[in-house]
């Protein structure tokens, strides 16, 4: 068994491309006057979300996203921020999931989710200047503007029910995952927008339509790449939503989080803002034509 690790050696081209993409992301945001920051990986609690399970670290947790510290920075007066960091989510493992993965988050003060859609289009233009990519034999046109499809329209187009009905029957996630997601973003990238308000714990409701929240997910070639919001800035509303999510977490047997009082207090000072989290490993999958997330990281947990 003295053979070199042939499979690891075979990742060379993709690892080189990954390093180039990371440099490209940093250059893109620095050119646009975003401040790169690092926030602690180890935290007393995450923003409570019903279906995101944390990895414990001593009495605290590894963060599942840097969202709360990033918003505290926004509230303190930093208008444009980005971070590239490792995040941890327990028991998430599949061809597109790793329990430890790399996230890119960026935030803009005085902006809503439309500005983030423009950022996504521009970021891909910077990373793939040819204006297209080929993934698993399919060519995808990256030229702006990308498709904008509301959740309501997607249910009408790809299912025989409505988002509202699917939620009532507890079939929303299954229909998104099995009927909608696989069809999105094959000709051009697709922003799936305007989620039912109850599915966006940290998002602002759409002015004039409180049934939906200003949240979008970016899909390319059926791959979910990013999640974005116009941020909720009302501390009381946020506190109430956290309490609901935390109750659901506890009911599912998850460890309790302390109430993020500092975040909630400082939220009152946060300007109108929008933020987005993008999966860097999946971005590398798309740009290097990799079928699975395993191919774009040095080691998977199973290889350690």
């Amino acid at each position: 068994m003295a053979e070199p690790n042939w499979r690891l050696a075979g990742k060379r081209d993709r690892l080189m491309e990954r390093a180039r993409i990371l440099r490209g992301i940093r250059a893109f945001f620095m050119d646009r006057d975003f401040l790169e920051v690092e926030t602690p990986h180890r935290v007393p609690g995450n923003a409570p979300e019903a279906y995101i399970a944390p990895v414990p670290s001593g009495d605290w947790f590894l963060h599942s996203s840097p969202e709360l510290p990033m918003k505290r920075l926004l509230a303190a007066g930093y208008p444009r921020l980005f971070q590239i960091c490792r995040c941890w989510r327990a028991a998430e493992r599949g061809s597109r999931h790793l329990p430890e993965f790399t996230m890119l988050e960026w935030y803009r003060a005085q902006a809503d989710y439309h500005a983030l859609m423009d950022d996504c289009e521009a970021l891909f233009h910077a990373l793939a200047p040819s204006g297209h990519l080929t993934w698993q034999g399919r060519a995808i046109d990256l030229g702006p503007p990308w498709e904008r499809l509301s959740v309501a329209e997607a249910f009408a187009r790809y299912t025989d029910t409505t988002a509202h009905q699917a939620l009532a029957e507890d079939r929303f996630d299954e229909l998104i995952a099995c009927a909608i997601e696989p069809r999105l973003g094959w000709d051009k990238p697709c922003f799936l927008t305007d989620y039912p308000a109850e599915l966006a714990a940290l998002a602002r409701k759409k002015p004039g339509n409180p049934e939906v929240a200003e949240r979008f997910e970016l899909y390319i070639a059926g791959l979910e790449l990013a999640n974005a919001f116009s941020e909720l800035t009302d501390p009381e509303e946020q506190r109430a939503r956290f309490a609901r999510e935390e109750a659901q977490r506890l009911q599912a047997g998850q460890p309790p989080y302390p109430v993020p009082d500092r975040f909630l207090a400082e939220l009152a000072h946060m300007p109108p803002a929008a933020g987005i989290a993008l999966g860097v490993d999946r971005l590398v999958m798309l740009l290097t034509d990799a079928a699975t997330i395993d191919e774009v990281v040095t080691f998977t947990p199973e290889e350690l």
Partner: protein
Amino acid sequence: MYNCSDLKKGLKLMVDGEPHVIVAFDFTKPGKGQALYKCKLRNMITGSLFDRTYRSGESFEPASLEDRDMQYLYQDESGYVFMDQKSFDQVHLSEETLGDDKYFLIDNMNVNVLMFGERAIGITLPNFVNLKVTHTDPWVKGDTAAGNNKPATVETGYTLQVPSFVEEGDLIQIDTRTGAYNTRVKE
């Protein structure tokens, strides 16, 4: 009982009262939603294939199958023939039932034949088998990049990716659970 975190390719479980094997598996989680476990299942009796998605909290009964030690004898027009070495009973399995497992059978190999009642419905292979490479492109001298790979065909007709230093006539170890190259074996 199994729960969702046990689900993986190759797991055998009861679905609607009949034994099924998971032939493809993926975990997914849409947006900020619930974890979903997507399975492609094969009914081990009828052979029919279908997709089913499970969610956290569901549990599954293991397939009630008896493992019987048998020896692989040969292939003929009736299929693949195995013999119980104690009772000398012979059973036949079709090419379709064996699926890709047929590529990892070597004459006289010992395998576990899976019985559902009196019926043979599949086999469990050893985790690793050694097979001889019958065709692959020659190693180009000077191609020292350790990561380069190329296709190779082994004696059973199976084709897989191997490192560039593997040559025709080499014996290689293959992981039957994934079908992937593991290492070269010295004869």
